[in-house]
C-alpha cells in the first residue's frame, strides 16, 4: 500500500526551478534540488519493507495545499524579550519575522540565518555541510521532498569551542488553510561546542477554531544536525500545531567522536504527524539519548519512526518512545537499531511503550534490531502496551485522590521523562499545560464508572 511513490500535486520541476531562481541559489544547490526531485519520483512512500503496511496517509490531503513561495526579505523586527533564551528565530507562516541574538550569543559568535545569509566567500562551507544530500537519508521520500522543494533554509552554526548556557529558541507558527511551508534547518556544532535548542511549533495566532471541511495546512521540515568531535547538543521540541495541520519532519543527526546528542520530543498537536529520526553514531564514544512522546486524541495519527545506526566503537544509544492514545487516535511507533560490524562495545537500548485509553484507539509498535557485531555492552529492546495500571490508580485513590485525577496523574507521570528535559521553565510549564489540556474535559465530570468506584 505504501510502495507507490508519493503523489504531490505541488511538486513539479518547474516549481523547483522557480524557487531556486527566486532565492538566487548557486547552480550546485539547484542540482541538489533536482537530484532530490528525481528520488521522490522513484522512491516508494515507505522504502523500508519492514514498515510498508504501517504508513497511513488516508487522512492527508496533499492536493489541498499550495505551499508558500519564498518569502520576501525578513519583515522589520520589533525588540523582543528573549525570556532567558540565548537567541530566538521565529518563522510565521512563510518566513522569518523575528531574529534576535542575545549579547552572550552574539559575543560567542553564534550564527543564525538563512542559507542565503551564509557569506558568499564561505558558500563552499554550506556546500561542505549539505552537498550531495549528505544531511538527509537518501532513501526517504519525505526527506527528499524537503530537499527538493524547501523555500526557507535556516542555518544555526555554533563555532568550535563555543559553549552556550542558554537555549536557542526556534519558533514556528503556521496554520493558514490551504497553505504550507517546506523548510530545512541545518544545525552545525563545531568541535567542543555546546548548545541547546528549543523548537516550538504552534498554531497560527488567529485562534479561529478548526473547521474539518477547510483545506488542510502543511508544515514540512527537517532538522539536519552535524556534531563535531566532543560537541554536545540538546534538542527539545514541542509540536502543538492546530487540528487542520499535517506536520512532517525528518531529523538526521551525525555525531563525531565523543559527541553527545539528546532529543526530547513531544508531539501533541496536528491532524497527522510523521516524524523520522536518523541517528548516525559515527565517532568513537558518541552517544544519543532520545525520549519521544506522542499524546493523541480525536482522529490524530502519530507516525514516529527512528533509525539509530552504531558505526564507531563504544557508542551509546538510549531511545525511549512513549505514546498515549485517546478516542480514535492511532500511534505507529517504528524503530530500528543497527549495529554495524565495526561498532564494538555498543550499548544500545530501544524502548517503545504505549498506553491506550479508549477502545477505538490503536497502537502499533515495531522495535527492531539488526546486529552484525555481538561484542556489545548491551543490545536490547523492550516494548509494552496496556491500559492505566489499576493498582497505581488504587494506590493514589487510597491516598485520597479521586479516580479521574489519579488516572490523569498517572498518564502525565508516564510522559514526564520528556517534560522534565525541556529547557526554560516557561517552556516546561507550557508543555505541562498542553498535556493537561489534552486530558478530556468530559472525563472530569463523574462517569458511571467513577460513580460506582466512589
Amino acid at each position, binding site marked *: 500500500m505504501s510502495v507507490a511513490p508519493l503523489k504531490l500535486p505541488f511538486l513539479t520541476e518547474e516549481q523547483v526551478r522557480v524557487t531556486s531562481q527566486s532565492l538566487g541559489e548557486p547552480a550546485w544547490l539547484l542540482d541538489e534540488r533536482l537530484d532530490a526531485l528525481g528520488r521522490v519520483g522513484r522512491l516508494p512512500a515507505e522504502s523500508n519493507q519492514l514498515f510498508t503496511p504501517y504508513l497511513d496517509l488516508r487522512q492527508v490531503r496533499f492536493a489541498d495545499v499550495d505551499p508558500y513561495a519564498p518569502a520576501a526579505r525578513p519583515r522589520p523586527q520589533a525588540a523582543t524579550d528573549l525570556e532567558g533564551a540565548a537567541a530566538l528565530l521565529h518563522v510565521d507562516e512563510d518566513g522569518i519575522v523575528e531574529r534576535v541574538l542575545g549579547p552572550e550569543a552574539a559575543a560567542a559568535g553564534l550564527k543564525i540565518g538563512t542559507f542565503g545569509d551564509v557569506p558568499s566567500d564561505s558558500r563552499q562551507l554550506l556546500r561542505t555541510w549539505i552537498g550531495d544530500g549528505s544531511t538527509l537519508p537518501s532513501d526517504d521520500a519525505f526527506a527528499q521532498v524537503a530537499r527538493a522543494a524547501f523555500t526557507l533554509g535556516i542555518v544555526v552554526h555554533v563555532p568550535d569551542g563555543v559553549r552556550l548556557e542558554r537555549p536557542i529558541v526556534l519558533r514556528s507558527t503556521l496554520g493558514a488553510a490551504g497553505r504550507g511551508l517546506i523548510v530545512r534547518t541545518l544545525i552545525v556544532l563545531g568541535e567542543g561546542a555546546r548548545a541547546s535548542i528549543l523548537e516550538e511549533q504552534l498554531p497560527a495566532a488567529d485562534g479561529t477554531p478548526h473547521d474539518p471541511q477547510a483545506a488542510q495546512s502543511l508544515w514540512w521540515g527537517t532538522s539536519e544536525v552535524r556534531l563535531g568531535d566532543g560537541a554536545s547538543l540538546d534538542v527539545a521540541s514541542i509540536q502543538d500545531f492546530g487540528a487542520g495541520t499535517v506536520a512532517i519532519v525528518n531529523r538526521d543527526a551525525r555525531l563525531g567522536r565523543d559527541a553527545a546528542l539528546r532529543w526530547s520530543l513531544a508531539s501533541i498537536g496536528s491532524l497527522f504527524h510523521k516524524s523520522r529520526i536518523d541517528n548516525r553514531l559515527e565517532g568513537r564514544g558518541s552517544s544519543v539519548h532520545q525520549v519521544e512522546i506522542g499524546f493523541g486524541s480525536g482522529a490524530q495519527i502519530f507516525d514516529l519512526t527512528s533509525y539509530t545506526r552504531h558505526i564507531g566503537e563504544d557508542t551509546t544509544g538510549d531511545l525511549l518512545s512513549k505514546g498515549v492514545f485517546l478516542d480514535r487516535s492511532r500511534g505507529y511507533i517504528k524503530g530500528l537499531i543497527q549495529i554495524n560490524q565495526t561498532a564494538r562495545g555498543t550499548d544500545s537500548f530501544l524502548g517503545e511503550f504505549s498506553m491506550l485509553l479508549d477502545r477505538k484507539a490503536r497502537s*502499533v509498535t515495531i522495535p527492531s534490531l539488526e546486529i552484525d557485531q555481538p561484542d*556489545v555492552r548491551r543490545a536490547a529492546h523492550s516494548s509494552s*502496551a496496556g491500559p492505566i495500571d489499576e493498582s497505581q490508580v488504587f494506590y493514589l485513590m487510597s491516598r485520597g485522590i479521586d479516580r479521574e485525577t489519579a488516572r490523569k496523574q498517572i498518564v502525565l507521570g508516564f510522559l514526564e521523562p520528556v517534560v522534565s528535559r525541556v529547557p526554560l521553565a516557561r517552556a516546561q510549564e507550557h508543555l505541562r499545560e498542553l498535556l493537561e489540556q489534552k486530558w478530556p474535559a468530559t472525563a472530569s465530570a463523574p462517569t458511571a464508572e467513577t460513580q460506582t468506584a466512589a
Partner: protein
Amino acid sequence: MTSTRDAVRDRRDEFAFHDDLIYLHEVKRGLTRATVEEISALKNEPDWMLQFRLRAYEHFLKRPMPLWTDGLDKINFDKIVYYRKPSEREEKSWEDVPEQIKDTFERLGIPEAERKFLAGVGAQYDSEVVYHSVKEELTKLGVVFMGTDQALIEFPDIFRKYFGTVVPPEDNKFSALNSAVWSGGSFVYVPKGVEVPLPLQAYFRINGENTGQFERTLIVVEDGARVHYIEGCTAPIYATESLHVAVVEVVALARSKVRYTTIQNWSNDVYNLVTKRAHAYEDSTVEWIDANTGSRKTVKYPSIYLRGRGASADIISVAVAGKGQHQDTGAKAVHLAPDTKSRIVSKSVSKDGGRATYRGHVKVAPGATNVVASVRCDALMLDDESRSDTYPYIDIQEDDTSLSHEATVGKISQDQVFYLMSRGLTENEAQNLIVQGFLEVFTKELPMEYAIEFNRLVKLEMEGALG
C-alpha cells in the same frame, strides 16, 4: 576463535545421503496448468480438489514474490519437479515397504524409534506417504492418523469441511503454490473427548535432486480432545536448490489441547517455506514447539488465531543459523476473542556467518478484550561474521490489553566460559553447554529421545563452529 576451528570436523555430511531409486511417476520439471491437472488426475481426486488446485495455481501466478525477506528470487520454479510417487500404494506393514526405501529409514533410525514408544508412524518419502502404522488402540478410539491423500478419499466430509479453511490458498504466494501441487503430509482426526496417550510422529524426508516437497498436513481436534504431533526432518545434500513448501492447518475446537512439535533439519540447500497456522476455539490451547537448524533458508512463522473466548497460545521458536544459512523464523499470535492469552518465546543462535531473524506479530483485534500477551526474544551471536535481526510487530486495538515484549542480543559470556573451564571443561565443551542451556526452554518440552537427538544435533553444529 578460529584457530582451532579446522581441527574439529563438520560431521554434517554423515547425515546426508541419498539413494538412487526409480520413481514410478514423475511429472515434468516446471509448473504449468497441465502439471496441476496431471497431479490431480494421477491421484484420482474429486473435481472440487482439482478446482481448488487450479484456483490456487492462478493465484500463485498473480501473487508477487514477497520482498520483505531476501534471497527468494534465487528459486528457479522451472527447475523443480512438482510430483514424484516412489511406490504405487500405501504400505501398512513394514515388511511390504520396498527394500531401498526401508534402508534409508533404517539409517534414519525410524524402526528403533518406533519400537520404543511411537504411537504411529507416517514417514514421508518424497511425495507420498509410504508407510503408516497406527496402534490398534488408537484406531479403536476413533483416532485417524493417515496420509492426507488417503484421508481425502476415506474421510471426504470432514476433510472438505476443514481443508483450506485455516490457510486459504490466497494467504500468501507459497500457500498458493502448496495448494496447487500439494501431495502427502499427515491427516489427524481426534474425536470428541479422546486423549491420545502418546505423541503421533511423522518423519519427513526429501530424496531426489530438485524434488519439491509440498506436503499438506491437516489436524482436527474435537471438543475436549488432546493430541501431540511431532515431525522431524532430514534430507540429503545436493548442489542445486531443493524446495520444501508446506502448509500445516490445525483446528483446535473448544476445550481441546494440541501440541505440534517440529525439528527441522533440512540439508543446507533446501528452501524451506512453510505456512503453519492454527485456529484455537473457546478455552482450547495450542502450542507450537518449533526448532530450525537446517535448510539454506527457512521462512516460517507458526501462527495461532485465537478465535474463541479463553483460548491460549504458546509458541516456542528456536533457530540455529550456521554458514550460508538464513533462519527467518518467528511466531504470530492474533487475538480475535476476549480473555485470550498468548506467550511467544524465541531463541536464536547465529554463527559462521549465518543469519538468524526473528519476525513476530502480535495483534489484538477490536473486540478482543482482556488480552494478555508476552513476547520474549533472545539471540546469541557466536562471532562477528554472523548477523541477528529482530522484527517484532505489535498491533493493539483494545485498550485493556496487557502486552509486554523484550529482546536481547549478545554473545557467550566469557565469565560463564571461565567458570565452566575452572570446573574442568574444555573451552569447546563449556561453550556447547552454554548454548544447550540457552536453548533449554525448547529442549525441555521435547520427549526424551528427541531431546537427546536435538542436543546431539546442536553439539554437532557447535563442533563445526567453535574452537
